[in-house]
Protein backbone atom coordinates (compact mmCIF):
# COMPACT_ATOMS: atom_id res chain seq x y z
CA UNK A 1 0.00 0.00 0.00
CA UNK A 2 1.27 3.43 -0.94
CA UNK A 3 2.17 5.86 1.83
CA UNK A 4 -0.28 8.69 2.36
CA UNK A 5 1.52 12.03 2.36
CA UNK A 6 0.32 14.66 4.79
CA UNK A 7 0.87 18.23 3.63
CA UNK A 8 1.60 21.36 5.63
CA UNK A 9 -1.92 22.53 4.88
CA UNK A 10 -3.36 19.45 6.52
CA UNK A 11 -1.18 20.04 9.57
CA UNK A 12 -2.32 23.68 9.75
CA UNK A 13 -5.99 22.83 9.39
CA UNK A 14 -5.72 20.05 11.99
CA UNK A 15 -4.10 22.45 14.47
CA UNK A 16 -6.98 24.90 14.14
CA UNK A 17 -9.67 22.22 14.13
CA UNK A 18 -8.30 20.45 17.22
CA UNK A 19 -7.50 23.55 19.27
CA UNK A 20 -10.43 25.81 18.43
CA UNK A 21 -12.85 22.92 17.89
CA UNK A 22 -11.86 21.53 21.29
CA UNK A 23 -12.26 24.90 22.96
CA UNK A 24 -15.62 25.52 21.26
CA UNK A 25 -16.89 22.07 22.23
CA UNK A 26 -15.87 22.40 25.87
CA UNK A 27 -17.42 25.88 26.03
CA UNK A 28 -20.60 24.24 24.76
CA UNK A 29 -20.46 21.50 27.38
CA UNK A 30 -19.73 24.03 30.11
CA UNK A 31 -16.30 22.59 30.99
CA UNK A 32 -14.20 25.48 29.67
CA UNK A 33 -13.22 28.02 32.31
CA UNK A 34 -10.35 30.51 32.21
CA UNK A 35 -10.87 32.04 35.61
CA UNK A 36 -11.83 31.27 39.13
CA UNK A 37 -15.52 31.24 39.87
CA UNK A 38 -16.06 34.97 40.12
CA UNK A 39 -19.21 34.94 42.17
CA UNK A 40 -19.04 34.11 45.86
CA UNK A 41 -21.21 31.23 47.01
CA UNK A 42 -24.73 32.11 48.14
CA UNK A 43 -26.76 31.36 51.22
CA UNK A 44 -29.82 29.16 50.66
CA UNK A 45 -31.84 32.36 50.83
CA UNK A 46 -29.99 33.63 47.72
CA UNK A 47 -27.71 36.32 49.16
CA UNK A 48 -23.97 36.14 48.60
CA UNK A 49 -22.07 34.73 51.58
CA UNK A 50 -19.41 37.09 53.02
CA UNK A 51 -17.42 34.02 54.13
CA UNK A 52 -16.54 33.36 50.48
CA UNK A 53 -14.94 36.77 49.93
CA UNK A 54 -11.40 36.14 48.61
CA UNK A 55 -8.29 38.27 48.80
CA UNK A 56 -8.28 38.50 45.02
CA UNK A 57 -11.62 40.35 44.96
CA UNK A 58 -11.46 44.03 44.15
CA UNK A 59 -13.39 46.57 46.18
CA UNK A 60 -15.39 47.12 42.98
CA UNK A 61 -16.45 43.45 43.11
CA UNK A 62 -17.46 43.80 46.76
CA UNK A 63 -19.64 46.75 45.69
CA UNK A 64 -21.12 44.67 42.86
CA UNK A 65 -21.85 41.54 44.91
CA UNK A 66 -22.71 43.01 48.30
CA UNK A 67 -23.91 46.49 47.43
CA UNK A 68 -21.38 48.28 49.66
CA UNK A 69 -20.21 51.48 47.90
CA UNK A 70 -16.50 51.46 47.18
CA UNK A 71 -16.02 54.85 48.83
CA UNK A 72 -17.41 53.45 52.09
CA UNK A 73 -14.90 50.60 51.88
CA UNK A 74 -12.02 52.95 51.06
CA UNK A 75 -12.97 55.19 54.00
CA UNK A 76 -13.49 52.29 56.41
CA UNK A 77 -10.02 50.95 55.65
CA UNK A 78 -8.40 54.40 55.27
CA UNK A 79 -7.01 53.45 51.86
CA UNK A 80 -4.62 56.17 50.61
CA UNK A 81 -6.01 58.32 47.78
CA UNK A 82 -3.40 57.05 45.31
CA UNK A 83 -4.68 53.49 45.72
CA UNK A 84 -8.40 54.24 45.34
CA UNK A 85 -8.98 52.63 41.96
CA UNK A 86 -11.37 50.04 40.53
CA UNK A 87 -8.48 47.58 40.41
CA UNK A 88 -7.71 47.78 44.13
CA UNK A 89 -7.81 44.28 45.59
CA UNK A 90 -8.39 43.22 49.16
CA UNK A 91 -5.00 41.52 49.25
CA UNK A 92 -3.35 44.80 48.25
CA UNK A 93 -4.03 45.98 51.81
CA UNK A 94 -1.38 43.55 53.05
CA UNK A 95 1.17 45.74 51.31
CA UNK A 96 -0.20 48.98 52.74
CA UNK A 97 -0.90 48.09 56.36
CA UNK A 98 1.29 46.35 58.92
CA UNK A 99 -0.20 43.38 60.81
CA UNK A 100 -1.18 44.26 64.38
CA UNK A 101 -0.49 41.98 67.35
CA UNK A 102 -3.12 42.11 70.09
CA UNK A 103 -3.15 39.72 73.06
CA UNK A 104 -0.54 37.56 71.34
CA UNK A 105 -2.61 37.16 68.19
CA UNK A 106 -1.64 38.75 64.90
CA UNK A 107 -4.41 40.50 63.01
CA UNK A 108 -3.70 40.94 59.34
CA UNK A 109 -5.41 43.82 57.60
CA UNK A 110 -6.89 41.79 54.80
CA UNK A 111 -9.63 39.44 53.71
CA UNK A 112 -11.05 38.50 57.10
CA UNK A 113 -11.60 42.13 58.10
CA UNK A 114 -13.44 42.75 54.81
CA UNK A 115 -15.61 39.70 55.51
CA UNK A 116 -16.39 41.04 58.99
CA UNK A 117 -17.14 44.52 57.69
CA UNK A 118 -19.35 43.16 54.92
CA UNK A 119 -21.19 40.93 57.36
CA UNK A 120 -21.94 43.86 59.68
CA UNK A 121 -22.78 46.21 56.82
CA UNK A 122 -25.31 44.00 55.05
CA UNK A 123 -26.52 42.20 58.16
CA UNK A 124 -25.65 38.66 57.12
CA UNK A 125 -23.88 36.20 59.41
CA UNK A 126 -20.13 35.56 59.34
CA UNK A 127 -18.20 34.03 62.21
CA UNK A 128 -14.51 34.84 62.18
CA UNK A 129 -11.98 32.51 63.74
CA UNK A 130 -9.15 35.03 63.56
CA UNK A 131 -10.39 38.60 64.03
CA UNK A 132 -10.80 39.74 67.61
CA UNK A 133 -10.43 43.49 67.05
CA UNK A 134 -11.45 45.85 64.26
CA UNK A 135 -9.75 49.00 62.94
CA UNK A 136 -11.12 52.14 64.62
CA UNK A 137 -11.97 53.71 61.26
CA UNK A 138 -13.95 50.62 60.29
CA UNK A 139 -16.02 50.68 63.50
CA UNK A 140 -16.61 54.42 63.05
CA UNK A 141 -18.02 53.92 59.55
CA UNK A 142 -20.26 51.09 60.76
CA UNK A 143 -21.55 53.24 63.64
CA UNK A 144 -22.04 56.29 61.40
CA UNK A 145 -23.98 54.16 58.93
CA UNK A 146 -26.00 52.72 61.82
CA UNK A 147 -24.88 49.20 61.02
CA UNK A 148 -23.60 48.67 64.56
CA UNK A 149 -25.99 49.48 67.35
CA UNK A 150 -26.74 48.55 70.94
CA UNK A 151 -24.54 45.99 72.66
CA UNK A 152 -22.66 45.10 69.51
CA UNK A 153 -21.70 48.75 69.07
CA UNK A 154 -20.49 48.94 72.68
CA UNK A 155 -18.51 45.71 72.33
CA UNK A 156 -16.73 46.59 69.12
CA UNK A 157 -16.00 50.16 70.16
CA UNK A 158 -14.00 48.60 72.99
CA UNK A 159 -12.19 46.18 70.67
CA UNK A 160 -10.44 48.39 68.17
CA UNK A 161 -6.93 49.12 66.92
CA UNK A 162 -5.32 51.83 64.83
CA UNK A 163 -4.29 50.97 61.27
CA UNK A 164 -0.53 51.20 60.84
CA UNK A 165 0.62 52.17 57.37
CA UNK A 166 3.74 50.51 55.96
CA UNK A 167 5.96 53.11 54.29
CA UNK A 168 4.16 55.53 51.97
CA UNK A 169 1.21 53.29 51.23
CA UNK A 170 2.64 52.23 47.90
CA UNK A 171 2.11 48.62 46.94
CA UNK A 172 5.21 46.54 47.44
CA UNK A 173 6.03 44.15 44.64
CA UNK A 174 4.72 40.75 45.71
CA UNK A 175 7.60 38.82 44.25
CA UNK A 176 10.05 40.99 46.17
CA UNK A 177 8.01 40.42 49.28
CA UNK A 178 8.04 36.67 48.86
CA UNK A 179 11.70 36.41 48.05
CA UNK A 180 12.77 38.22 51.20
CA UNK A 181 14.48 36.14 53.85
CA UNK A 182 11.53 36.30 56.24
CA UNK A 183 8.79 34.29 54.60
CA UNK A 184 5.28 35.56 55.23
CA UNK A 185 2.80 33.00 56.54
CA UNK A 186 -0.48 34.11 55.05
CA UNK A 187 -3.93 32.66 54.79
CA UNK A 188 -3.29 31.53 51.23
CA UNK A 189 0.05 29.89 52.07
CA UNK A 190 -0.26 26.23 51.07
CA UNK A 191 0.74 23.21 53.12
CA UNK A 192 3.31 22.50 50.41
CA UNK A 193 4.83 25.94 50.88
CA UNK A 194 5.06 25.39 54.64
CA UNK A 195 7.00 22.18 53.98
CA UNK A 196 9.25 24.06 51.60
CA UNK A 197 9.88 26.67 54.29
CA UNK A 198 11.15 23.83 56.49
CA UNK A 199 8.13 22.90 58.61
CA UNK A 200 8.04 19.18 59.34
CA UNK A 201 4.90 17.08 59.69
CA UNK A 202 5.75 16.55 63.36
CA UNK A 203 6.09 20.29 64.02
CA UNK A 204 2.85 20.90 62.15
CA UNK A 205 1.00 18.43 64.35
CA UNK A 206 2.55 19.89 67.51
CA UNK A 207 1.29 23.35 66.54
CA UNK A 208 -2.16 22.47 65.24
CA UNK A 209 -2.89 19.24 67.06
CA UNK A 210 -4.01 17.80 63.73
CA UNK A 211 -2.18 15.65 61.19
CA UNK A 212 -0.78 17.52 58.22
CA UNK A 213 -3.16 17.09 55.26
CA UNK A 214 -1.83 14.95 52.44
CA UNK A 215 -3.16 17.51 49.94
CA UNK A 216 -0.25 19.91 49.57
CA UNK A 217 -2.36 22.54 47.85
CA UNK A 218 -4.69 23.12 50.82
CA UNK A 219 -4.30 26.68 52.08
CA UNK A 220 -3.62 27.42 55.72
CA UNK A 221 -6.80 29.51 55.84
CA UNK A 222 -8.95 26.59 54.70
CA UNK A 223 -7.18 24.16 57.03
CA UNK A 224 -7.69 26.45 60.03
CA UNK A 225 -11.35 27.04 59.19
CA UNK A 226 -11.99 23.33 58.67
CA UNK A 227 -10.48 22.41 62.02
CA UNK A 228 -11.91 25.30 64.04
CA UNK A 229 -8.47 26.72 64.92
CA UNK A 230 -7.34 30.28 65.60
CA UNK A 231 -5.62 31.64 62.52
CA UNK A 232 -3.57 34.30 64.34
CA UNK A 233 -2.15 31.85 66.88
CA UNK A 234 -1.34 29.24 64.26
CA UNK A 235 0.34 31.85 62.03
CA UNK A 236 2.56 33.09 64.83
CA UNK A 237 3.54 29.60 66.00
CA UNK A 238 4.41 28.46 62.49
CA UNK A 239 6.39 31.64 61.83
CA UNK A 240 8.32 31.18 65.09
CA UNK A 241 9.06 27.55 64.27
CA UNK A 242 10.42 28.13 60.81
CA UNK A 243 12.14 31.44 61.61
CA UNK A 244 13.51 30.90 65.13
Amino acid at each position, binding site marked *: *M*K*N*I*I*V*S*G*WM*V*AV*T*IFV*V*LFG*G*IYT*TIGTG*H*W*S*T*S*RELEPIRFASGEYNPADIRGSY*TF*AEIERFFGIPMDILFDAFKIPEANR*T*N*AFKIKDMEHIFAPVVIDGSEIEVGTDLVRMFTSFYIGLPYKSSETTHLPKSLVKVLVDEQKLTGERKAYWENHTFELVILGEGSII*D*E*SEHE*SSENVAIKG*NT*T*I*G*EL*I*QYGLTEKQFKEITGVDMP*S*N*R*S*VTLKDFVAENGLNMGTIQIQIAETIQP
Partner: protein
Amino acid sequence: MSRKKKTNITRNLRLGIQIFFLVLIMLFSFNHYRVEQGLEPFVLSESPSLHAICPFGGVETLYTFFTQGTYVRKIHASSFILMWLVLLLSLLFGPVFCGWVCPLGTVQEFIGKIGKRLLKKRYNHVIPTKIDTYLRYARYLVLAIVLYQTAMVGTLIFADYDPYFALFNIWSDKVTWTAFAILGLTLAGSLVVERPWCKYVCPYGAVLGIFNTFRLVKLSRDPNLCVDCGRCDRECPMNLTPSDDTNVINHQCIVCLQCTSEVECPIKDALSLKIRPEVVK
Protein backbone atom coordinates in the same frame (compact mmCIF):
# COMPACT_ATOMS: atom_id res chain seq x y z
CA MET B 1 13.69 11.72 -10.19
CA SER B 2 11.42 14.72 -10.50
CA ARG B 3 12.23 18.22 -9.39
CA LYS B 4 9.58 19.71 -7.19
CA LYS B 5 8.02 23.03 -8.01
CA LYS B 6 9.71 25.64 -5.80
CA THR B 7 7.28 27.43 -3.52
CA ASN B 8 7.40 28.59 0.03
CA ILE B 9 3.74 28.01 0.77
CA THR B 10 4.32 25.67 3.71
CA ARG B 11 7.02 27.88 5.20
CA ASN B 12 4.78 30.94 4.92
CA LEU B 13 1.79 29.03 6.20
CA ARG B 14 3.68 28.05 9.33
CA LEU B 15 4.97 31.59 9.75
CA GLY B 16 1.43 32.94 9.44
CA ILE B 17 0.15 30.56 12.09
CA GLN B 18 3.06 31.36 14.39
CA ILE B 19 2.36 35.10 14.06
CA PHE B 20 -1.36 34.51 14.61
CA PHE B 21 -0.75 32.75 17.94
CA LEU B 22 1.95 35.22 18.96
CA VAL B 23 -0.40 38.18 18.45
CA LEU B 24 -3.31 36.32 20.08
CA ILE B 25 -1.33 35.53 23.23
CA MET B 26 0.05 39.08 23.42
CA LEU B 27 -3.46 40.49 23.15
CA PHE B 28 -4.83 38.13 25.79
CA SER B 29 -2.03 38.95 28.18
CA PHE B 30 -2.25 42.70 27.56
CA ASN B 31 -6.02 42.59 28.03
CA HIS B 32 -5.66 40.66 31.25
CA TYR B 33 -3.34 43.36 32.53
CA ARG B 34 -5.77 46.11 31.42
CA VAL B 35 -8.71 44.43 33.13
CA GLU B 36 -6.67 44.08 36.32
CA GLN B 37 -6.08 47.83 36.13
CA GLY B 38 -9.83 48.40 35.84
CA LEU B 39 -9.67 49.23 32.10
CA GLU B 40 -11.65 47.82 29.20
CA PRO B 41 -10.06 44.98 27.15
CA PHE B 42 -8.41 46.00 23.88
CA VAL B 43 -9.71 44.57 20.52
CA LEU B 44 -10.76 41.19 21.98
CA SER B 45 -13.45 40.87 24.60
CA GLU B 46 -11.64 38.02 26.36
CA SER B 47 -8.89 38.56 28.90
CA PRO B 48 -7.75 35.21 30.31
CA SER B 49 -4.53 35.06 32.31
CA LEU B 50 -1.46 33.48 30.73
CA HIS B 51 -1.73 30.61 33.19
CA ALA B 52 -5.28 29.92 32.02
CA ILE B 53 -4.25 29.43 28.40
CA CYS B 54 -0.92 27.65 28.87
CA PRO B 55 -1.25 23.91 28.22
CA PHE B 56 1.83 23.22 30.35
CA GLY B 57 -0.24 24.37 33.34
CA GLY B 58 -2.34 21.28 32.72
CA VAL B 59 0.76 19.10 32.98
CA GLU B 60 1.86 20.85 36.16
CA THR B 61 -1.46 20.23 37.83
CA LEU B 62 -1.75 16.55 36.80
CA TYR B 63 -0.51 15.18 40.12
CA THR B 64 -2.79 17.43 42.16
CA PHE B 65 -5.72 16.69 39.88
CA PHE B 66 -5.43 12.93 40.08
CA THR B 67 -4.57 12.75 43.79
CA GLN B 68 -6.78 15.54 45.15
CA GLY B 69 -9.29 16.23 42.39
CA THR B 70 -8.33 19.92 42.29
CA TYR B 71 -6.15 22.20 40.17
CA VAL B 72 -2.99 23.87 41.41
CA ARG B 73 -3.65 27.49 42.34
CA LYS B 74 -3.98 29.82 39.28
CA ILE B 75 -4.63 26.87 36.96
CA HIS B 76 -8.11 26.50 35.58
CA ALA B 77 -10.06 23.96 33.53
CA SER B 78 -8.92 25.73 30.34
CA SER B 79 -5.24 24.81 30.86
CA PHE B 80 -6.22 21.24 31.55
CA ILE B 81 -8.37 21.02 28.41
CA LEU B 82 -5.64 22.65 26.29
CA MET B 83 -3.16 20.11 27.61
CA TRP B 84 -5.32 17.23 26.32
CA LEU B 85 -5.89 18.95 22.96
CA VAL B 86 -2.16 19.52 22.47
CA LEU B 87 -1.45 15.92 23.49
CA LEU B 88 -3.93 14.81 20.82
CA LEU B 89 -2.12 16.92 18.23
CA SER B 90 1.18 15.45 19.40
CA LEU B 91 -0.17 11.93 19.10
CA LEU B 92 -0.96 12.72 15.47
CA PHE B 93 2.02 14.79 14.36
CA GLY B 94 4.50 14.97 17.25
CA PRO B 95 5.37 18.30 18.93
CA VAL B 96 3.63 20.39 16.29
CA PHE B 97 2.73 22.78 19.11
CA CYS B 98 6.43 23.67 19.49
CA GLY B 99 7.00 24.31 15.81
CA TRP B 100 3.74 25.99 14.85
CA VAL B 101 2.06 27.46 17.92
CA CYS B 102 4.36 28.22 20.88
CA PRO B 103 4.94 32.01 20.91
CA LEU B 104 8.23 31.71 22.80
CA GLY B 105 9.54 29.41 20.07
CA THR B 106 8.41 31.94 17.48
CA VAL B 107 10.21 34.81 19.20
CA GLN B 108 13.39 32.71 19.42
CA GLU B 109 13.10 31.97 15.70
CA PHE B 110 12.71 35.66 14.88
CA ILE B 111 15.81 36.55 16.87
CA GLY B 112 17.58 33.60 15.27
CA LYS B 113 17.15 35.29 11.88
CA ILE B 114 19.34 38.13 13.15
CA GLY B 115 21.83 35.58 14.46
CA LYS B 116 21.96 33.88 11.06
CA ARG B 117 22.86 37.16 9.40
CA LEU B 118 25.54 37.88 11.94
CA LEU B 119 27.17 34.45 12.24
CA LYS B 120 26.27 33.01 8.84
CA LYS B 121 27.38 29.32 8.67
CA ARG B 122 28.63 29.31 12.23
CA TYR B 123 25.09 30.04 13.46
CA ASN B 124 23.57 27.12 15.34
CA HIS B 125 26.90 25.24 15.24
CA VAL B 126 28.78 26.83 18.12
CA ILE B 127 28.26 24.21 20.79
CA PRO B 128 30.50 21.13 20.45
CA THR B 129 28.42 18.10 19.41
CA LYS B 130 29.51 16.01 22.40
CA ILE B 131 28.33 18.57 24.93
CA ASP B 132 25.25 19.41 22.90
CA THR B 133 24.13 15.77 22.81
CA TYR B 134 24.08 15.55 26.60
CA LEU B 135 22.59 19.00 27.09
CA ARG B 136 19.59 17.97 25.00
CA TYR B 137 18.45 15.73 27.86
CA ALA B 138 18.62 18.52 30.45
CA ARG B 139 15.03 19.46 29.75
CA TYR B 140 13.87 16.12 31.16
CA LEU B 141 15.67 16.96 34.39
CA VAL B 142 13.94 20.37 34.39
CA LEU B 143 10.61 18.64 33.78
CA ALA B 144 11.16 16.23 36.68
CA ILE B 145 12.11 19.05 39.05
CA VAL B 146 9.14 21.22 38.02
CA LEU B 147 6.62 18.39 38.37
CA TYR B 148 8.04 17.22 41.71
CA GLN B 149 8.20 20.71 43.19
CA THR B 150 4.72 21.64 41.97
CA ALA B 151 3.30 18.44 43.43
CA MET B 152 5.02 19.06 46.76
CA VAL B 153 4.31 22.77 47.12
CA GLY B 154 0.93 22.96 45.45
CA THR B 155 1.68 26.24 43.63
CA LEU B 156 3.05 27.14 40.20
CA ILE B 157 6.69 27.40 41.21
CA PHE B 158 7.83 27.38 37.57
CA ALA B 159 6.23 30.79 36.92
CA ASP B 160 9.09 32.38 38.86
CA TYR B 161 11.58 31.05 36.29
CA ASP B 162 9.47 30.88 33.15
CA PRO B 163 10.72 33.09 30.28
CA TYR B 164 7.39 32.65 28.47
CA PHE B 165 5.55 34.11 31.46
CA ALA B 166 8.12 36.93 31.67
CA LEU B 167 7.96 37.75 27.96
CA PHE B 168 4.21 38.13 27.85
CA ASN B 169 3.94 39.84 31.23
CA ILE B 170 6.73 42.27 30.59
CA TRP B 171 4.40 45.19 31.40
CA SER B 172 3.23 43.80 34.73
CA ASP B 173 4.86 43.65 38.15
CA LYS B 174 4.25 39.90 38.56
CA VAL B 175 7.50 38.72 36.97
CA THR B 176 10.48 37.84 39.12
CA TRP B 177 13.96 39.06 38.21
CA THR B 178 14.96 35.39 37.82
CA ALA B 179 12.41 34.92 35.05
CA PHE B 180 13.57 38.13 33.37
CA ALA B 181 17.18 36.96 33.59
CA ILE B 182 16.30 33.59 32.06
CA LEU B 183 14.32 35.37 29.34
CA GLY B 184 17.32 37.60 28.65
CA LEU B 185 19.64 34.59 28.41
CA THR B 186 17.18 32.80 26.12
CA LEU B 187 16.85 35.74 23.75
CA ALA B 188 20.60 36.41 23.76
CA GLY B 189 21.25 32.71 23.22
CA SER B 190 18.93 32.76 20.23
CA LEU B 191 21.48 34.94 18.48
CA VAL B 192 23.93 32.05 18.37
CA VAL B 193 21.81 28.89 18.76
CA GLU B 194 18.44 28.18 17.14
CA ARG B 195 15.73 27.85 19.83
CA PRO B 196 18.06 27.37 22.82
CA TRP B 197 15.20 27.25 25.34
CA CYS B 198 13.42 24.55 23.34
CA LYS B 199 16.54 22.46 22.87
CA TYR B 200 17.98 22.49 26.35
CA VAL B 201 15.47 23.62 28.95
CA CYS B 202 11.79 23.63 28.00
CA PRO B 203 9.96 21.10 30.22
CA TYR B 204 6.89 21.19 28.00
CA GLY B 205 9.01 20.46 24.94
CA ALA B 206 10.35 17.48 26.89
CA VAL B 207 6.82 16.12 27.38
CA LEU B 208 5.80 16.66 23.76
CA GLY B 209 9.13 15.40 22.44
CA ILE B 210 8.36 11.94 23.76
CA PHE B 211 5.50 11.74 21.24
CA ASN B 212 8.06 11.78 18.43
CA THR B 213 8.77 8.16 19.22
CA PHE B 214 5.24 6.91 18.54
CA ARG B 215 3.34 9.61 16.66
CA LEU B 216 0.94 8.41 13.99
CA VAL B 217 2.09 10.67 11.16
CA LYS B 218 5.81 10.19 10.71
CA LEU B 219 8.49 12.18 8.99
CA SER B 220 9.74 9.69 6.39
CA ARG B 221 12.62 9.73 3.92
CA ASP B 222 12.33 7.66 0.78
CA PRO B 223 15.81 6.22 0.19
CA ASN B 224 14.90 5.48 -3.43
CA LEU B 225 14.28 9.14 -4.16
CA CYS B 226 16.83 10.73 -1.82
CA VAL B 227 19.97 12.01 -3.56
CA ASP B 228 21.92 12.43 -0.30
CA CYS B 229 22.49 16.13 -0.83
CA GLY B 230 22.36 16.72 2.95
CA ARG B 231 20.22 19.80 2.62
CA CYS B 232 17.68 18.49 5.13
CA ASP B 233 20.45 18.15 7.72
CA ARG B 234 21.71 21.67 7.09
CA GLU B 235 18.26 23.23 7.30
CA CYS B 236 17.05 21.53 10.48
CA PRO B 237 16.81 24.18 13.22
CA MET B 238 17.18 21.48 15.87
CA ASN B 239 20.41 20.13 14.28
CA LEU B 240 18.88 16.74 13.52
CA THR B 241 20.09 14.62 10.62
CA PRO B 242 17.03 13.36 8.72
CA SER B 243 19.31 11.93 6.04
CA ASP B 244 20.56 9.24 8.43
CA ASP B 245 17.37 7.22 8.63
CA THR B 246 14.25 6.24 6.77
CA ASN B 247 12.04 7.55 9.56
CA VAL B 248 13.07 10.62 11.52
CA ILE B 249 12.51 9.54 15.09
CA ASN B 250 14.13 12.01 17.45
CA HIS B 251 12.74 13.51 20.65
CA GLN B 252 13.91 16.96 19.57
CA CYS B 253 11.99 17.24 16.28
CA ILE B 254 9.53 20.17 16.35
CA VAL B 255 7.73 19.24 13.11
CA CYS B 256 8.56 22.56 11.46
CA LEU B 257 8.70 20.73 8.08
CA GLN B 258 11.78 22.77 7.14
CA CYS B 259 13.58 19.60 5.98
CA THR B 260 10.71 18.27 3.87
CA SER B 261 10.12 18.29 0.13
CA GLU B 262 7.47 20.93 0.77
CA VAL B 263 10.11 23.40 1.90
CA GLU B 264 13.84 22.67 1.49
CA CYS B 265 14.34 19.15 0.17
CA PRO B 266 14.88 19.57 -3.59
CA ILE B 267 13.31 16.22 -4.53
CA LYS B 268 9.55 15.82 -4.63
CA ASP B 269 8.20 13.42 -1.97
CA ALA B 270 11.69 12.34 -0.90
CA LEU B 271 11.13 13.60 2.64
CA SER B 272 7.54 14.08 3.80
CA LEU B 273 5.07 13.59 6.58
CA LYS B 274 3.51 10.21 5.92
CA ILE B 275 0.88 7.97 7.39
CA ARG B 276 2.69 4.69 7.13
CA PRO B 277 1.00 1.73 5.39
CA GLU B 278 0.98 -0.39 8.53
CA VAL B 279 -0.95 2.38 10.30
CA VAL B 280 -3.41 2.91 7.45
CA LYS B 281 -4.42 -0.72 6.73
